[in-house]
């Protein structure tokens, strides 16, 4: 995984493809459970993710939402981690349609390069479509890997 610069943040076991969700809250809870199962957060973090997304939508465009906890929920993060859950059937997200969720648990800024990569990718419609419709876990990891090893100032920014 080191060659992809994803480090410990996003591992193959935290990428789930072809899932379905009854509604937005169900989707957020499924995303949260991946983080709980992998030991990145305490179970209570999932409620804080549901609350955060209820307060202000975490939909970021191009069919992607980035559910994460509230500031208070940050105390329930055990280690920085990301996860990806794909819902090919789409989930109504405050009026938008999300087909891919990137769950975030972060105490520090180690995940910043990956989210920066996501932001770039979402501005390129072809690549955004490739991410939404990714057929393999490897495709997802490849698309989200930052191109360069993060520089120290970006990690501490």
């Amino acid at each position: 995984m080191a060659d992809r610069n994803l480090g410990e943040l996003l591992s193959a076991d935290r990428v789930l493809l072809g899932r379905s969700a009854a509604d937005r809250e169900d989707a957020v809870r499924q995303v949260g459970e991946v983080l709980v199962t992998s030991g990145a957060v305490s179970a209570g973090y999932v409620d804080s993710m549901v609350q955060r997304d209820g307060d202000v939508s975490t939909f970021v465009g191009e069919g992607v939402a980035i559910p994460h906890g509230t500031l208070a929920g940050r105390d329930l993060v055990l280690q920085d981690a990301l996860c990806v859950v794909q819902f090919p059937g789409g989930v109504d997200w405050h009026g938008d349609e999300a087909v891919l969720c990137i769950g975030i648990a972060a105490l520090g800024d180690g995940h910043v390069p990956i989210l920066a990569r996501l932001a770039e990718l979402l501005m390129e419609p072809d690549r955004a479509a490739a991410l939404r419709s990714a057929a393999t876990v490897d495709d997802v990891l490849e698309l989200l890997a930052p191109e360069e090893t993060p520089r120290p100032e970006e990690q501490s920014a």
Partner: protein
Amino acid sequence: MPSIDASEVRKVVIACDAGMGSSVMLASTVRKQLKDSPITVEHTPVDHIPDDADIVICHAGLAERARAVVPGRVVVPFQLFIGDPAVTKVVAALRSGGTIDG
């Protein structure tokens, strides 16, 4: 409504509730767009906006909280993470000069 001339801006802060998701993504985009300027771009939780922030950019749903944290400062609300006209306008002013209201 507070306003600031682009030439006086040293620090732009992108704020969201927890400072771990949406603000991170938008900050990375804005930082890239301003990489040739001396302006610092940071992302923080809305309750921890630093006092030396010249401009605060945050989701429309958090704008009132941001204004309470740094009263009198320019707060620019946005709705869209990609291509929001409000953010585009701020970046354009920071790059080529102008007044930013918020």
